[in-house]
């Protein structure tokens, strides 16, 4: 199972970077598993879309990014936030609608953002992010910052006009933009094999004059490598790339989804394809990391998530005065 992984790439990343990547993926997984439980407990309000199963995408891409770079996310945004360095405790508090949250309780799961980290927000509008990312890429280009901008979006969003327009705009403006189509097989209950008229979303790249690649989204190293190439090209003035990442989501579309439309693909994926298992297998096989090192991270992450929930629950809600603030910078 790990034999298909590109070896040169594993070698390129030193132990610290590998540990960091593992920590990010593990944090996302635990965060989501925990939100899943807490939601079932009735404590978390609103619509919550979990990223479990897809960790290698956000992590593989964001490992290449730094403070110059920006990302835009989707309704399924927790993973992207964590991978771009948004504070996990603030995120959890946000999901609980507390004043200590990333958005002081005003945004919730679908709007977690941290502009100071170049994280432009989860987005409740399917296809909302790609235009914004064209703008961030344009800003990076105009200001000569060397930054790139990455739009994450789903298979469903790949049919949205705003996404398609953005591919064209990024191409003709030759922007340092990367479009990551996260194809988890479904938009809500609808199969991407039906809703996307091509075999692969990556096929759409040619329609907008940019390279398109497909990667195994369960494989951190595959994502890391494809993203690395695209991001390097973008930083070099070589323009945008469309990367299709294929995997499955472990939970329902949102919490509460009965998932009658699915087969048993999740059990299979969790067993055979899981990004954390494969990562562990790979890096211990090559001897770059030990199982103990990874176990230690597991323990730390579990503690962090635990604390984040405890603290979120204990945190105060925003007060009525907060209702009217933050509409304008000045009015």
């Amino acid at each position, binding site marked *: 199972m790990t034999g298909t992984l590109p070896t040169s790439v594993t070698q390129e990343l030193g132990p610290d970077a590998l540990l960091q990547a593992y920590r990010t993926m593990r944090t996302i997984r635990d965060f989501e598993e925990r939100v899943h439980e807490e939601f079932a407990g009735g404590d978390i309000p609103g619509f919550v879309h979990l990223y479990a199963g897809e960790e290698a995408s956000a992590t593989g891409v964001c490992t290449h990014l730094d403070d110059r770079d920006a990302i835009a996310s989707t309704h399924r945004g927790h993973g992207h936030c964590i991978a771009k360095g948004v504070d996990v405790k603030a995120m959890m508090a946000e999901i609980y609608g507390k004043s200590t949250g990333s958005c002081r309780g005003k945004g919730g799961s679908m709007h977690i953002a941290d502009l100071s980290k170049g994280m432009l927000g989860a987005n409740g509008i399917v296809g909302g992010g790609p235009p914004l990312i064209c703008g961030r890429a344009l800003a990076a280009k105009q200001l000569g910052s060397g930054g790139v901008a990455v739009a994450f979006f789903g298979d469903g969003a790949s049919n*949205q*006009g*705003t996404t398609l327009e953005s591919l064209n705009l990024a191409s003709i403006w030759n922007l340092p933009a990367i479009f990551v189509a996260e194809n988890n097989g479904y*938009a809500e209950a*609808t199969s991407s094999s*039906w809703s996307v008229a091509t075999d692969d979303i990556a096929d759409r790249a040619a329609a907008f004059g940019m390279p398109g690649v497909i990667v195994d989204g369960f494989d951190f190293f595959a994502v890391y490598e494809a993203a690395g190439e695209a991001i390097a090209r973008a930083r070099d003035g070589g323009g945008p790339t469309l990367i299709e990442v294929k995997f499955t989501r472990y939970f329902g579309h949102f919490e509460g989804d009965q998932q009658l439309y699915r087969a048993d693909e999740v059990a299979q994926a969790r067993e055979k394809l899981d990004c954390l298992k494969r990562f562990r297998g790979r890096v211990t096989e090559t001897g770059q990391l030990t199982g103990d090192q990874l176990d230690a991270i597991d323990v730390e992450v579990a503690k962090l998530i635990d604390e984040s929930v405890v603290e979120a629950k204990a945190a105060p809600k925003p007060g*009525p005065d907060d209702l009217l603030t933050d*509409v304008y910078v000045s009015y």
Partner: protein
Amino acid sequence: MARSITYREAINEAIAQEMERDERVIVMGEDNVGGTGSPGEMDAWGGVLGVTKGLYGRFPDRVMDTPISESAFIGAAIGAATGGLRPVAELMFVDFMGVCFDQIYNQAAKFRYMFGGKAVTPVVIRTMWGAGLRAAAQHSQSLLSVFTHIPGLKVVVPSNPYDAKGLLIQSIRDDDPVIFAEHKMLYDTAGDVPAESYAIPFGEANVVREGDDVTIVAIGRMVATAQEAAEQLAGSGIQAEIIDPRTVSPLDTDTILESVENTGRLVVVDEANPRCSLATDISATVAQDAFGSLRAPIQMVTAPHTPVPFADSLEDVFIPDAQKVANAVKTAVEWKK
């Protein structure tokens, strides 16, 4: 025969009965079936909150899923309406109108006028609106004033299961484009609804409660809020008349003006943002056409000029409640020049 069913069931029943009656009625929207192309069951969703559930089983050729391409499929519903079908298309949340509004206001709404009266576009766009579900800024908006502003559109806002069924049947039979706005917090509310088919005409307000001291015009979910306030006020000897317009375009101004001519006072309750809203629309009409009867300042009870917040502690203050309505009524009643 009337049974108690929910607002959700009433909507489903209206569509089913119209589909039964008229083969040209088709249904489309994101996961309105749910499961197209997927390995598991079809009709797995029936819409994100299950409103169209079961229709696919009964009319498999006439209920269809769509990709996430609101411009294309709302536009397709509109185009199909010019070509002999009577589509009922779902714009899941009204908040998503921004990705397809052109097809609604520049195409559907204007065809008849631009084409010199020679077009007929019988399309219904069902859409979910309103706050209260902790769904935050992009899934909780009202936005009905935006549609009401547009000539050529009709805008329907049922506040209870009985109206939902009768108004939806009328919407489907109507030859003009209709925005049918379903309040997401009302889906589980139940009420008596006849099993047989019936249509409620547009532009006829419902006087939900009679009273001589103040006229309260309330929209959608706010009708119940106004009723709660009215009960409270009755305790203090103030009798409120409550008017539910049911359709805001056309708006039954006659009923509103007549009521104000009797009560001399107007309170408008609308959970939307305040600027250029239905609240201002109704208030301004009264200030123009029933001024002579007004004995106190018009009071508008609305959400503040802010996006809808996520936290429950904020959203609960954002949405007008009975206390605010009662206070507004008191301000009007106690007002002295």
